[in-house]
């Protein structure tokens, strides 16, 4: 026997309690990780490879206000602009679904790949798309999710526009962070809405990261004091704009997380204390045999650390494992897509478990240290 086996035997002596303690830590850390993942997904949109060079241009009033198509020529001529495409959100419903599960954008197919460089499609697919005005390019995720094949029809019921789309799928793309979207010809949308004069937004690719800030400034000032002032901003800033709209939700989730951690602490300290209190007599004997205070304290600490880390492995590790395998998109009605557990979250979960283990060991541990052997021997239960 070694000291380590002694500690492990002790931790597992009451298997039911060990299980309950580790499980309550596990459940709470599972919850903690889940909330962190959700929060991250809501507030820190994932970044595409091309994002640092990309600039979104919207109407200064709001995203809902369209931009005049004549702005294209002005933007194209701004130095540092490598490519630009119109980019209009359609917001259609697919197959009688009651909410939008993937986005559809009207773009200029000739310009599209120059702006979204990371979207990879075979040249065959691309050519077919460019040629056919009634066709669309569909992300691989959506193709797989709905079991679509190249050649199928893509029918979408408009919610923002009083028009429905009927298109042929001629190709797929992948390589972006969100391979769900459908891209189609802006001219097709113009035709349906009988409005060739407006677009939703412009998306621009700057020639280099160095000139990007200058390009943003130039675009903003180019339309100042016109009837359609614009707000050009980096893709990142554009997405953070959505985050800002969430308002107090972030604070809410943060406070829930703290409540959980606090509750967890409370429960584990009490459980651990119970476990130790039951063994007061035994610990008194160890003391009598000649174990020192800090040896006993480290036994107890090691034991509580062992249990809470076990809980962390089950809870945080379990979360990472489960989220890797479940279809979160289907479960959450399209609200969450990736639900990825980062190393940082695992790190903080384990850190919490460590703190928890130490605190819930130290509290009863100290009372063991203070206890006199004689008193300890007197305790019966």
């Amino acid at each position, binding site marked *: 026997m070694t000291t380590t086996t002694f500690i492990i035997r002790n931790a597992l002596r009451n298997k*039911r*309690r060990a299980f*309950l*303690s580790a*499980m*309550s830590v596990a*459940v*709470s850390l599972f*919850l903690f990780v*889940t909330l962190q993942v*959700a929060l991250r997904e809501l507030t820190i949109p994932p970044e595409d490879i091309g994002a640092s060079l990309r600039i979104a241009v919207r*109407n*200064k*009033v*709001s*995203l*809902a*206000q369209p931009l005049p198509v004549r702005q294209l020529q002005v933007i194209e001529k701004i130095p540092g602009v490598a490519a630009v495409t119109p980019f209009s959100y359609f*917001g259609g419903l697919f197959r009688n679904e009651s*909410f939008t599960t993937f986005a559809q954008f009207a773009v200029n197919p000739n310009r599209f790949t120059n702006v979204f460089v990371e979207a990879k499609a075979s040249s065959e697919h691309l050519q077919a798309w460019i040629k056919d005005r009634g066709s669309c390019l569909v992300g691989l995720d959506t193709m797989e999710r709905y079991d679509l094949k190249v050649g199928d029809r893509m029918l979408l*019921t*408009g*919610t*923002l526009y*009083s028009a429905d789309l009927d298109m042929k799928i001629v190709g797929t793309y992948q390589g972006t962070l969100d391979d769900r979207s459908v891209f189609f010809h802006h001219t097709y949308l113009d035709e349906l809405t009988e409005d060739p004069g407006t677009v939703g937004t412009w998306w621009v690719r700057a020639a280099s990261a160095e000139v990007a800030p200058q390009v943003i400034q130039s675009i903003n000032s180019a339309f100042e*004091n*016109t*009837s*359609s*002032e614009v*707000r050009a901003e980096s893709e990142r800033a554009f997405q*953070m*704009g*959505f985050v*800002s*709209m*969430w*308002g*107090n*939700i972030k604070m*809410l989730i943060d406070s*829930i997380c703290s*409540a*959980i951690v*606090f*509750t*967890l602490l*409370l*429960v584990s*300290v*009490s*459980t651990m*204390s*119970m476990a130790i209190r*039951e063994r007061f007599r035994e610990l008194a004997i160890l003391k009598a045999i000649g174990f020192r205070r800090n040896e006993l304290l480290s036994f107890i600490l090691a034991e509580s650390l062992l249990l809470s880390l076990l809980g962390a492995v089950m809870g945080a590790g379990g979360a990472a494992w489960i989220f890797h395998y479940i279809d979160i998109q289907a479960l*959450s*009605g399209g*609200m969450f897509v990736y639900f990825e557990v980062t190393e940082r979250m695992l790190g903080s979960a384990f850190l919490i478990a460590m703190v928890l283990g130490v605190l819930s060991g130290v509290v009863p541990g100290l009372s063991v240290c203070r206890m006199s052997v004689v008193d300890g021997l007197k305790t*019966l*239960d």
Partner: protein
Amino acid sequence: MLPIKYNAKNVVLRWRSTLATILGIAMVVAVYVMVQALAVGLEKSSANTGDPRNLMIVRKGSQSESSSIVTLEQYRSLLYSEWIEHDANDRPLVTADVLTLVNLPRREQNGEANTTLRGIGPMGKVLRPQVKLVEGRWFEPGKREVVVSKRLAARFANFDIGDRFKTGPDWLTVVGWFDAGNCAFDSEIWADSDEVRALFDRDSYSCLLVRPVNAEGLTVLTKLVEEDKRLQLLAKNEVAYYREQTMTATPIKWLGNFLATAMSIGAILAAMNTMYATVGARTREIGTLRVLGFRRRTIVLGLLIEGMLLCSIGGVFGCLLALPINGYATGTIGFESFSETVFEFTITPALASQGIVFSALIGLFGTLIPAIKASRTPVIDALKSL
């Protein structure tokens, strides 16, 4: 039946772990109640909105007022219907509204968010008596003036009376604050309908709100609108229309239920732990009770009552913890309008009792196994145990 006093006294006896369990359950219930209060508040605000006498007319297929389109022709074709009520000056009670999103800075440099700007017709205020001016005055058409919701004003910069804010090339002046009694209009800015159309270069309106002469008129008009295939419009009672705008509350409820489920598993584990310890320490006592002639069932029942009592105290405490948030106004993005939606956390008596029942259930499930186990201990063993 064991006297309740026996169980009540036991709850007090092991106060340390008991206290921890109670506090733990209180936290669980508090979190549950708070999150649900958010969903209840959101739902209440949309359920509160509108006048049952009014009929809302929107484009078929649109998911919200702001994505609806009603053309001038459509508006005119309905304006002169004999089924529409008229006011004292013989003007029809119809308003053609136009809604647009305006991106504006929040107070305290807290980023920007979309707000809904609603242009209303001259009858717009008459049709919505629940909206009351609380400060300043109503806007005058043509003067680039707006009134804003008092609750929204608390959240956005430049919304004090007399302030101006720029949207597009134009400056708009805030001349008044209104209070809509905690409904969807509390998330809006109001201005004149045709002025808003001009400002944002809109050819059409977004939706129509009409007051039919009577209940029959409401049915006839609804039918009229829906059967005219050319119109492609949809008519719905105004109250019903807003009540169905609950998409925003759905994910919050989802979150609430998820949290409640996961946290209650944790709480049940904790309660089990406490009850196991309590029961374990009392094996001898339980043995004695059995020697005295108490039945197993009675002992299990007694312990269950004890566990539920303990957890209900936590539940009540949790509701008390959550209570201060009741009436606290907050805002988040509304999924239908895609703009800031202001609402109040609302803890209804039903929600509070839900929380307490929830805590009692935690007690029930947490105690069941330990109690059964304890009652199964043979009498002799129970008496031997030290």
